[in-house]
């Protein structure tokens, strides 16, 4: 025994803790889900879907052409009479069945979600799947209560909804789209994103097992062409979640058609930290805000606005925290940051990050080994960013945080709102009156105060300005799927 200070032990390496993939039984090939059956595409075309963490092919998936989309819309149209004719209480039971089946098979869905999309298993397991089931459960309960939702109005279904969803939360977005549409008596043609079709196809299996009448839900896989075919098809409504660029294309494509439209588009959220904030929790909120799901989140807190007195300490704490982030195998239960969803997305992130460096912002990345194969990007901070930098204006949709400073609440609001987007915003302060003052002024559909990236089926979600229109979730999430007397176009 000596009195010398003992040298720290070798650092504690967590052993790999991979979730088993045995629970997932993949077919070699998946057809289109039309009229209650999986069918081969009339287009005759198939495409491969991969695991972005390994670049291995998982399965072949049908590519729906215009004819296939037309058949799916016909099936949905045919099923509409039956479906809307059902009492709400009976429609509800089908949705409850789906919710329960998702809970039962949550592990299987979570593993597949992670395999196909690259997100950490702890997120697909603890967030995506529980929330997806919860959405079905929540909207199931609305199916026979719609007359209470809109005082003074008599709601009715719209008809056939074409729904186009993104690759960042494949299963959750399917639930956000399907649950309210079905609860309100509409039938659906759903198009999953081309890089992440597999959980939607597994959901088709669940839908079949839940014995939904054939054609109530149809799922057509494919890329942008398939989406364009769906937008052009004789549907009554288009609901789209994705980039602002594509949202505008859809707005133009549906102009003059009378199709109803809701858009949930991009964002460049400001996350505002005041000097009196609970700093250690703010650090967690900032990290969760931008690194959740590799930053593939439309409402990600991608612009950090820090009040100058705490800039230094917050950056120190953030950098320290970044070193503890675990990046790698998405199936490992301890992984914090998984794979970038696709080569294309990785290219986009790299291009924007290079622009940040070129424009003179200072970049910080923690050291960490990246796997050899697959698509990866280190968590990245940029300081010395000004409002005019591309990395402060454009949606990067990756694990990249741009950090700016402010002096007064007015300046924070001005900078936060200085964007064509308006999806979400964050505020960190211990002062109640300031929270409400900020919440009132931030031009964003969701304001998280002293928290970030929280979601709930009862909570409406959607944007201001170029982040889209219409709300998903909550009572407000019913309206986009209902017609009333006259009104919206």
């Amino acid at each position: 025994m000596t009195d010398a200070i003992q040298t720290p032990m070798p650092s504690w390496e967590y052993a790999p803790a991979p979730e088993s993939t045995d629970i997932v039984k993949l077919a070699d090939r998946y057809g289109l889900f039309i009229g209650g059956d999986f069918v081969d595409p009339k287009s005759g075309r198939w495409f491969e879907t991969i695991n972005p963490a390994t670049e291995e092919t998982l399965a072949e998936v049908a590519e729906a052409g215009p004819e296939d989309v037309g058949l799916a819309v016909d099936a949905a149209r045919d099923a509409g009479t039956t479906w809307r004719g059902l009492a709400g209480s009976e429609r509800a039971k089908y949705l409850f069945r789906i919710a329960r089946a998702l809970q039962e098979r949550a592990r299987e869905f979570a593993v597949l979600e992670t395999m196909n999309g690259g997100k950490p298993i702890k997120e697909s397991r603890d967030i995506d799947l529980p929330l997806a089931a919860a959405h079905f459960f929540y909207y199931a309960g609305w199916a026979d209560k719609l007359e209470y939702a809109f005082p003074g109005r008599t709601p009715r279904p719209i008809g056939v909804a074409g729904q186009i969803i993104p690759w960042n939360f494949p299963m959750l977005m399917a639930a956000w789209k399907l649950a309210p549409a079905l609860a309100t008596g509409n039938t659906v043609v759903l198009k999953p994103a081309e890089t992440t079709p597999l959980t939607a196809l597994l959901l088709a299996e669940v839908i079949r097992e839940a014995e939904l009448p054939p054609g109530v839900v149809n799922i057509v896989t494919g890329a942008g062409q398939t989406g364009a075919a769906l937008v052009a098809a004789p549907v009554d409504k288009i609901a789209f979640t994705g980039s602002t660029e594509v949202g505008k294309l859809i707005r133009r494509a549906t102009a003059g058609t009378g199709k109803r439209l809701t858009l949930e588009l991009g964002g460049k959220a400001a996350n505002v930290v005041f000097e009196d904030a609970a700093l250690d929790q703010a650090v967690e909120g900032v990290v969760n805000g931008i690194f959740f799901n590799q930053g593939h989140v439309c409402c990600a807190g991608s612009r950090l606005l820090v009040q100058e007195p705490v800039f230094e300490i917050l950056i120190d704490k953030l950098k320290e925290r970044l070193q503890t982030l675990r990046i790698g195998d998405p199936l490992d239960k301890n992984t914090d940051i998984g794979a970038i969803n696709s080569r294309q997305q990785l290219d986009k992130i790299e291009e924007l990050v290079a622009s940040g460096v070129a424009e003179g912002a200072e970049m910080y990345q923690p050291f960490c080994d990246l796997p050899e194969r697959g698509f990866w990007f280190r968590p990245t901070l940029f300081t010395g960013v000004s409002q005019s930098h591309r990395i402060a204006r454009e949606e990067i949709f990756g694990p990249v945080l741009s950090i700016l400073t402010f002096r007064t609440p007015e300046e924070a609001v001005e900078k936060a709102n200085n964007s064509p987007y308006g999806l979400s915003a964050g505020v960190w302060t211990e002062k109640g009156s300031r929270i409400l003052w900020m919440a009132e002024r931030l031009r964003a559909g969701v304001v998280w105060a002293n928290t970030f990236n929280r979601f709930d089926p009862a909570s409406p979600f959607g944007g201001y300005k170029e982040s889209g229109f219409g709300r998903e979730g909550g009572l407000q999430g019913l309206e986009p799927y209902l017609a009333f007397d006259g009104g919206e176009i």
Partner: protein
Amino acid sequence: MSQAAEITPRAPGSLAPREAVRLLARVHAVDAVGLEGRAAALASRSIKKDAKLWALDLAIRCMDLTTLEGSDTAGKIVALCSKAVRPDPVDPSIPSVAAVCLYPQLVPVAVQELAGTGVKVASVAGSFPSGLGPLDARLQEIRDVAAMGADEIDIVLNRSLFLGGRYRETFEELAGAREAAGSAHLKVILETGELGSYDRIRQASVLAMAAGADFIKTSTGKIGVNATLPTALCMEEAARDFFRETGRRVGIKVAGGVRAAKQAIQYLVVLHETLGPEWMTPDLFRIGASSLLNDVLMQIDKQRTGRYQGPDYFTID
């Protein structure tokens, strides 16, 4: 990896009262939901195989094997010391625990039993567990246990003063205790279950660290609310900022209610990802427990043999 705790020389003493007040005024608020969310996220870490064995070994080396009953006898202490030195009589690879923690009257028994083993003797003092005896008597008790040979002294924060807003007096009492403890390590028990909020826990942590505590400790084990993961996280975040401000590393002791190996691992994960590898040592982390040790031993055995264990195969002392 079987050595008991190495104790660093006594840390530089208390800060000046003015400096302590300055630190206290700068304490950041704590958001309860955010803190608990972070602790829950860390608790869901999956620690397997070698990493688990490593953690279990460290949990033993960081353990303050504790008995604080009015019915404790010399005989019980002798047995406890034996268990502390050789937790598993048939397995020499199992390390000794860090310390045995007991009441003042029994210190001489433990000092004698543990001489030369590397296992430290820790004693509560200062009118444990209320801390509300006369100040002179409390300081005298601290001096007495130090004189009896206790290596470490666990005292309680004066919650009466602290919750009454009398921070200067609270600080001065703690600084007095620090002085009275002499070369012994001083652990200050905050009794977090009585402080009412994480903000107060964080403030109390800062006050105790500023007064020169070598460790801040969650609980006495004598009230309903013991150590919790968010409480430990809160104190560790305070210690992290204190280190940033002063360059001094203060240890963390969780006590009360830690009975399962799984809990111990969760505390180690929170420690690891909050204060980093430097704190992963008995010099800076302790778990005060009585029944935890056997569960850790069972888990080690499970890891090594692949069989689930039964309590009859582990000694009770």
